[in-house]
């Protein structure tokens, strides 16, 4: 069931999500092919974060289906029925999807390297030595080799976010989800993080990126999807969506952000 060129990495169909009686996602279809970068744009409250969280099953969806690399997230299909997975299996599938949060969410009580080593050792039962070795390589790649033994709180926001990316990458995920990875950063620090993401995209990582950085989207994205009020308003190649949007909502949003 692993991904081939023909199976898309992410295949979301008719996804609905309620918080209580409040419908936050109102039927979203989205396909991301392996190696592609999709940027999600949209105003605050449009459900971008929620959708991302549904993809790795941090939230259960109420209707529709999401499959990652050909496997349903959170369910197993068997004899014409959907069997809910148990926590352990969900955790296992989740470990193949990397996620980077707006607020970094590094583990403050561990050093940078310990942050990177924790999940491979605890989840994958890798040897600490192997995980640490790979971790150091990743840190070097994001330009933080010398910060391995620092604690997260002593790092700048940009540095913290790069550590968060390295932490996710150290699980060798098939898919990376980014939820506004630069919006908590000072303008000067944004560049550092976008550089790392650009490098990832060049290496062929499949990525879904929620962002307000239109410049980045234009440069890196294969597809730009504009969401509002829980639905996809417009989707397509960056040139089309960003420079020649068809819908009024998209245009008014871009007018404000640019």
């Amino acid at each position, binding site marked *: 069931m692993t991904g081939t060129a023909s199976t898309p990495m992410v*295949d979301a*169909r*008719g996804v609905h999500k*309620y*918080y*209580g*009686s*409040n419908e936050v996602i109102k039927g979203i*279809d989205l396909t991301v092919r392996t190696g592609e970068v999709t940027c999600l744009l949209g*105003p*605050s*409250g*449009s459900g971008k974060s929620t959708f991302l969280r549904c993809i790795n099953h941090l939230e*259960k*969806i*109420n*209707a*529709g*289906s999401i*499959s990652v690399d*050909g*496997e*349903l997230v959170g*369910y197993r*299909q068997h004899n*014409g*029925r*959907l*069997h*809910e*997975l*148990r926590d352990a299996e969900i955790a296992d599938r989740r470990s193949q999807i990397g996620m980077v949060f707006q607020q970094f969410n590094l583990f403050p009580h561990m050093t940078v390297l310990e942050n990177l080593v924790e999940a491979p050792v605890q989840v994958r039962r890798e040897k600490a030595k192997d995980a640490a070795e790979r971790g150091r390589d990743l840190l070097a790649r994001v330009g933080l080799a010398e910060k391995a033994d620092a604690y997260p709180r002593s790092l700048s926001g940009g540095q913290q976010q790069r550590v968060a990316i390295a932490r996710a990458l150290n699980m060798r995920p098939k898919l990376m989800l980014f939820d506004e990875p630069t919006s908590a950063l000072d303008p000067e620090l944004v560049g550092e993080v976008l550089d790392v993401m650009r490098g990832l995209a060049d290496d062929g990582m499949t990525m879904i990126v929620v962002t307000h950085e239109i410049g980045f989207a234009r440069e890196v994205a294969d597809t730009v999807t504009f969401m*509002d*009020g829980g639905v996809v308003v417009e989707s397509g190649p960056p040139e089309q969506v960003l420079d020649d949007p068809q819908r*009024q*909502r998209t*245009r*008014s949003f871009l*007018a404000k952000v640019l």
Partner: protein
Amino acid sequence: MTGVTRVELSPAGASAEEAPLRVVPVRRWGQWVATVVILAIAALLVHSVVANPNFQWDEVFGYFFDGRILRGLGTTLYLTVVAMVIGIVIGVVMAVGRQSRNVVVSGAASAYVGFFRGTPLLVQLIFWFNLAALYPTLEFGIPFLEPFYVADTNQLITPMFAAILGLGLNEGAYMSEIVRAGLLSVDPGQTDAAEALGMRRSKILRRIVLPQAMRVIIPPTGNATIAMLKTTSLVSVIAIGDLLFAVQVIYSRNFVVIPLLITASLWYLLVTTILSIGQHFLEKRFKRGERQAEQSYFAAWLTGLLPRRPKVEPMPVTAAIPIEPEGDRR
């Protein structure tokens, strides 16, 4: 979240229009076992308590409204309230004192807390009660000058006064740690903002910091109040009869020990429950303006017993931007 809501789901590759598949919830054997075990234990406990003749339920309820016990209960409640009020006031003063920039003031506050937390309450009570053994008269005045008021210690310090003094001062030391934790929990930005508006320290403490610290202060204070309810029984050593002492006096006569202890326990349970309800509402009161109410002990207990249903979520922080009327703005 584990509810078996019917979920329309279509497998990957199948078109969304196909009939939805049935979802089989995961079987959580561990949870079922836990549930069965807990229910079985609960049933056994209830059965063995109710059916066991040793508990002598007639005795238990026979004494429930006994005058002596009610009087003891009154003393317990009175002491708890007074001691907690004094303790909270002292706690606030000491917590603030410990943050004083004046070394002597903060040192004195620390010494107070260290001393009163460090010595047994029983000893403190006996000391206050028998202060006269150490200081037969108390003289008020300016040191090295003639005192302007001299009091016989024993007249000044009645047993009730000694009890209140002992319980209040002791509780003050513990409360000071609780209040200090609360003060530290308030974002320093709040003080900045209030200072920038020109408010003075005392005003900032009273109107800005303390009300916000209450969130963190209330739960451990609830713990402390419930503990105090039981701690008051130490005052029987200085001739004050609280609830527990009342039943002890009765059973030291008739040796109906266990039923009487159950009577006392039921009263304590009742009061504790009422206090928990009060705490619940107090917490709610001080959560005004907070988005998502954390569950207090009582609420958790309630929701722990009631089936959980999805409920309407509170308003989001970030208000959604209204969709503008169509019309090109470019």
